[in-house]
């Protein structure tokens, strides 16, 4: 029977004897007999590893999407994961460690996270970045909690350009914290702050680019925040940030993002990486872990998790956040990936995405009945289209041609739409994304197949 347990029969006999027990069952004497499971679990018997792998491969084959050329994005992107990043991030020293409670034997992971924090800080143009949160959505939840805590105001203006799933997560957790969420609609792909009302607020949240790919006017968002005494929280695409002005430069108090594009595969949505950066003013409200530099007993440079007084094991019900286990391995992966890309590489990837998206957008907009959904507002690496037929139909037809055509927006916002896509537009709306992995031939074939699928 396959397993990973080292005990021989002799070991078990000797250990039980040492304990004065006659059987393994007696180890559980403290469990009331009436509660004990008296049958086998309704699970299969253990399978040998090759059988388990074969079964997983069969499930993989049932995922037709894995084989398709990917034009889907919406916060999850098909970027290159180079072999060197994959291999380094798979080192078992990192994979099989845990939270660095003992810094003397965790300097490797701690230093990698220190480097990660530095890279995120530079990327977002803000001086403080934490050691990661679960994903972009959870980073947004924590950003809003920070802003509400800092301002004492529970009203939160959330642009409809923030990813619909992230807004949904925000709404779920607002049931506990009591935040009052106000959706700010988009007009031609940009937030219309005048629709929000003049009342004071704790946070103004806006995407850059927003989930429809549009470049928001962050100056207007900053002004909307200032007029209401709110902090400005920006949900930023970290790849586009390679060529865009940083949230910090625009005056954001907090910037969050989804770090999946940095070395992590699509993986059906996880594990991903919540990026979180803020101004120095808010460091003591920072959620999650923070690595800092210090010295050891000999005065030698060392790293350690710091400002621990914020954390739950010390502050318990008064902690700034309940996040404990986060996404350290994915943060480390991102640090390796950003080290591999380097200064020139990040800008090159962002530029390549923008070039591919521009080429693809032009091609698709030339097709009969295809309209831009966001007017003339500039986009960078993805864009929303209104189609003459339901987006789900186009997706299904293009899958047969070998393409994942994009994300049907009614899948994200529902059939009734929301402040980003109206009920009339939603069923026919498609969000298309292009990464550096898509070459001209693929894009041109995609446009030709798309044309056929519309007929």
């Amino acid at each position, binding site marked *: 029977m396959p397993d990973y347990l080292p005990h021989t029969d002799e070991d078990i006999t000797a250990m039980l004897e040492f304990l004065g027990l006659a059987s393994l069952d007696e180890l559980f004497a403290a469990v009331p007999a009436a509660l004990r499971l008296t049958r086998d679990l309704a699970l299969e018997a253990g399978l040998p590893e090759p059988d388990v792998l074969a079964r997983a491969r069969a499930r993989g084959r049932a995922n037709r999407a894995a084989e398709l050329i990917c034009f889907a994005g919406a916060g999850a992107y098909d970027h*290159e994961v180079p072999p060197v990043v994959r291999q380094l991030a798979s080192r078992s*020293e990192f994979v099989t460690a845990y939270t660095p409670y003992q810094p003397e034997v965790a300097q490797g992971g701690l230093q990698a996270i220190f*480097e990660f924090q530095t890279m995120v800080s530079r990327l977002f143009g803000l001086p403080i970045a934490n050691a990661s949160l679960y994903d972009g959505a959870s980073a947004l939840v924590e950003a809003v909690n920070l802003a509400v805590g800092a301002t004492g105001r529970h009203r939160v203006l959330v642009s409809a350009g923030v990813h619909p799933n992230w807004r949904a997560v925000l709404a779920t957790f607002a049931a506990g914290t009591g935040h009052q969420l106000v959706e700010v609609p988009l007009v031609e792909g940009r937030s219309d702050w005048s629709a929000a009302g003049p009342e004071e607020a704790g946070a103004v949240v806006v995407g850059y680019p927003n989930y429809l790919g549009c*470049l928001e006017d962050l100056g207007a968002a900053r002004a909307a925040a200032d007029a209401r005494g709110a902090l400005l929280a920006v949900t930023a695409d970290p790849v586009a940030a390679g060529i865009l002005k940083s949230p910090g430069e625009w005056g954001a108090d907090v910037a969050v993002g989804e770090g999946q594009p940095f070395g992590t595969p699509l993986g059906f949505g996880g*594990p991903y990486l919540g990026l979180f950066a803020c101004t120095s003013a808010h460091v003591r409200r920072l959620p999650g872990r923070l690595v800092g530099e210090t*010295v050891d007993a000999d005065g030698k440079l*060392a790293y350690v998790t710091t400002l621990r007084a914020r954390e739950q094991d010390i502050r318990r019900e008064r*902690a700034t956040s309940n996040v404990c286990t986060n996404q350290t391995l994915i943060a480390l992966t991102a640090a390796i990936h950003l080290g591999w890309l380097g200064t020139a590489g990040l800008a090159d990837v962002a530029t390549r995405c923008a070039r591919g998206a521009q080429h693809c957008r032009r091609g698709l907009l030339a097709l009969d009945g295809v309209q831009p959904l966001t007017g003339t507002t500039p986009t960078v690496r993805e864009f929303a289209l209104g189609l003459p037929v339901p987006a789900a139909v186009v997706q299904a037809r293009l899958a047969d041609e070998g393409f994942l055509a994009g994300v049907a927006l009614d899948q994200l916002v529902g059939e009734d739409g929301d402040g980003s896509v109206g009920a009339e537009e939603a069923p026919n709306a498609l969000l298309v994304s292009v990464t550096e992995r898509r070459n001209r031939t693929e894009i041109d074939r995609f446009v030709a197949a798309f044309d056929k699928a519309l007929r």
Partner: protein
Amino acid sequence: MSAAGGRAASAPLVGRESEPTIFELSRPGRTSYQLPTSGLEEPGLDELVPPEHRRSEPVPLAEVSERDLVGHITRLSHRQYSVDLGAYPLGSCTMKYNPKVCDAVAALAGLSEVHPAAPAELAQGWLATLAELERALCELAGMAAATLQPAAGAAGELTGLLLMRAYDEARGERRRRVIIPDSAHGTNPASVTLGGYEVTTVKSDERGCVDVGALRQVLDDDVAGMMLTNPNTLGLFEEDIVEIADAVHEVGGLMYYDGANLNAILGVVRPGDMGVDIVHLNLHKTFATPHGGGGPGAGPVAVAEHLADFLPGPRALRLEPAGPDDPPRYGWATPARSIGRVHGWHGNALVLARALAYIEVHGRDGLLRVAERAVLNANWLRRRLAGTLAVPFDRPCMHEVVFSAAPVHKRTGASAHDVAKGLIDEGFHPPTVAFPLIVDDALMVEPTETESYETLVALAEAIERVVARAERHELADAPTTTPVRRVDEARAARTLIPTFDARR
């Protein structure tokens, strides 16, 4: 006896030189990245991004060759203790061996290269994976339905509290308090606050279990529920669990089970059979998915039938096949009174796939053996070390045992913290220190089922040697064999340097 393999004493933690940061290794003009051939025209940035949105300079990252990057990260990996290196008896964290087959499953292109918004018809293998895992976890927990979305244990806790809240509201109530024992994990009270509830702490009795009398005194119709870890953080099974659950249910409250310690009871007893309504499971602990240096984990939440309607959605469900000979089909469904999403997509999917592989390779028989061996190992250490360290609650434990170094501390001045640092020099990762809070100088040891008898002996002997060193007042300098010596944590907080740019 043959030599023990569970120590890191022969690990390649060579020398005591610092490793420079990647920013110090950087030289302008050096690169390692490569992009695929594109064939696209190459318009400049001014044709792609309006000037008011363009950044003036590239983001300054590092500029290193691939060889230097590999050297840097590999050297960092040599400065990191891990399960694969040696025993890691970190109590409450279940640092067991992580079977490599699970990594192989997660690396399959058919799973890792699937977009999370792919239509269900194109992701049938993933929906099957999620539905299968949900079924297995519900069977193990004795529950009716589960959400796989929560990304970690604490996210599961908060999800569970929001379920409690939704259930409360659905019956037209607004209860304000949640009860937690004083031995609970710190995330419990933090989650309670974020769930919009107030914490009421109930103390443990002299046996280390919930004081049922004290519990009854704080129970009333303002109590939404109680969070309980069982076995608790002292490694003890709450023998009065039925009485506790009944008392909470009598005032209309729900029982929340923190599954951090589920490893001890797999196939032996199920939370659902203890009267529990809501459970979160830490897949990185019990199902070895692994820990990743502090995540990613996964914290699915399973519930009893009366709460299934409130679960986050969408959930992957097995649909009725069109005909008797047709293959199974899967689709998404959101429960009718769902509290909403708690994750941007479907949870930490590749972690979930690992957990399913772990369950499949162990099976019903193997999972029971896991619990038995984990409890056997912990009890052997408890008995073996009872003369060396104090055992505040000296009765049979489950998967972990909490020792106290308080007598050693009083006698020698060496605290649990010092003992932990001494153990590092012996080649072992230390136990959890100073937790649970209700034990002075706590050393919480969870050997897990994957450590051999020889490793347990080696660990026990190492702890005995460290205590002997304490008697000789030799621990103040420990550790001495690590890349850095004892780290000044106070200074890090006082003079905050959280980035290379803050270094002066």
